[in-house]
């Protein structure tokens, strides 16, 4: 099993494996959505799951926070099998951001962001401080705290989604095409913000996307999925040089996209 080395920090120190898939399969009815997945994700890396729709990326993500249970094999998170984790305490340790964001429309931004701390029983003034701090970190005005989700733009809402996922400072962050619905300019801004944010906090991130430039830009490692199988894992540099037919298809599809070079620089 090949583990990617951190290319941002000291490459010689190999971080412990935080999330591990051991020959995992997931079946929905008769259909195998995912099969034979063996993958270790190290602490602190940003592992991008790249693949087209229906390739099993999102399923892989949901197996980590136990929104799904594997039909075969085992998923280990922080040294414990997900089946042995209480799903609630497991999910409280894992931030989750989805493309549709799923902000609670009846709660203010402040309460949306502060919800997990609230569930965890933090005192209100500490929650308030935390919310303010997080909104600033994701590049939002803390005054937005008293607004409702409908009063925000798409980009602002997605930033709130990220802030909410970070609220209780979870060691793991799962992101399912979080920036997929944003316009290109907002998307690029928020990607840069994400890179800055990642530098500041040491999190293990699993990031689903079908966008190659995004994968190259944000990933410390890229896991290429197709038809429910993991085809291979690459550093962004390796991916660019790969001769794997699926990787080549991707490169061809995004050929001429100036972001491609920029991403792996």
């Amino acid at each position, binding site marked *: 099993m090949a583990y990617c080395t951190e290319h941002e920090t000291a490459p010689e120190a190999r971080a412990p494996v935080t999330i591990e898939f051991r020959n995992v399969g997931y079946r929905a009815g008769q259909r195998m959505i995912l099969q034979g997945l063996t993958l270790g994700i190290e602490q602190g890396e940003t592992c991008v799951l790249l693949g087209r729709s229906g390739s099993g990326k999102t399923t892989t993500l949901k197996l980590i926070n136990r929104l799904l249970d594997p039909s075969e094999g085992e998923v280990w998170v922080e040294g414990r099998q997900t089946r042995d984790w209480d799903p*609630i305490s497991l999910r409280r340790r894992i931030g*989750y951001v989805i493309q549709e*964001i799923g902000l*609670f429309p009846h709660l203010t931004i402040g309460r949306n962001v502060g919800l997990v701390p609230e569930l965890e029983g933090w005192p209100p003034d500490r929650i308030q401080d935390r919310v303010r701090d997080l909104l600033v970190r994701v590049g939002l005005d803390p005054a937005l705290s008293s607004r409702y989700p409908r009063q925000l733009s798409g980009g602002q809402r997605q930033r709130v989604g990220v802030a909410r*996922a970070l609220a209780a400072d979870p060691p793991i962050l799962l992101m399912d095409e979080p920036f997929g619905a944003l316009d290109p300019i907002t998307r690029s801004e928020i990607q840069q913000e994400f890179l800055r944010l990642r530098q500041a906090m040491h999190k293990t991130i699993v990031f689903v996307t079908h966008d190659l430039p995004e994968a190259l830009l944000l990933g410390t490692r890229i896991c290429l999925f197709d038809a429910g199988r993991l085809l291979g894992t690459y550093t962004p540099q390796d991916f660019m040089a790969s001769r794997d037919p699926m990787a080549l298809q991707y490169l061809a599809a995004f050929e001429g996209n100036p972001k491609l070079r920029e991403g792996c620089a």
Partner: protein
Amino acid sequence: MSLLQFFLNHRTEVIELMLEHLWMVGVSTLLAVIIGIPLGILLTRKPIFKRPVLGAANLVQTVPSLALFGLLLPIPFLGDRASRLAILALTLYALLPIIQNTYSGITNVDPAVVEAGRGMGMTDRQLLMRVQLPLALSVIVAGVRVATVISVGLATIAAAIGAGGLGEYIFRGLAMVNNQLILAGAIPAALLALLADFGIGLIEKALRPPAQEEA
């Protein structure tokens, strides 16, 4: 004698019958809410009950109201007092819209919102109390509104088994072929229905979660 004169001459009786009417509608709707909302929630949690419960509630709706009032007569404790019977029958009728709206209100909450809640580690109870019920509340109230309006109309038939209410005038008027008497029962009943529809409609509107529009 004009209708207005009739109301003036019989104002205590009219008010009494109206209060009887309201009592039957109010108590039966309250009971239906107390039974129907938990049942509706149960259906969202245990879908296996969906068909039998909705089927039974549907079946009740198909029984003609006059027949239902009559059918319930032999029931021991309830049969002693006609108003109890009427309340039971009205409760049964009110169940369907309330169960149905509770169920669909909860199941129609944006799946992304539910997934986000679940993904952030809410227990099922927290998800229900903090997310699903608040967002479904206006739909549930809409069900209560429909149930109440139907109930105001149906309660007129309760007079047939001696439970009182504005139906008294209607049945008396029918027996005496006196249109004015029929109207004396029908008009206040219609007004009550309109009032309930409007009043609960206001509550429903106030509870409706604002649409997620693009800013």
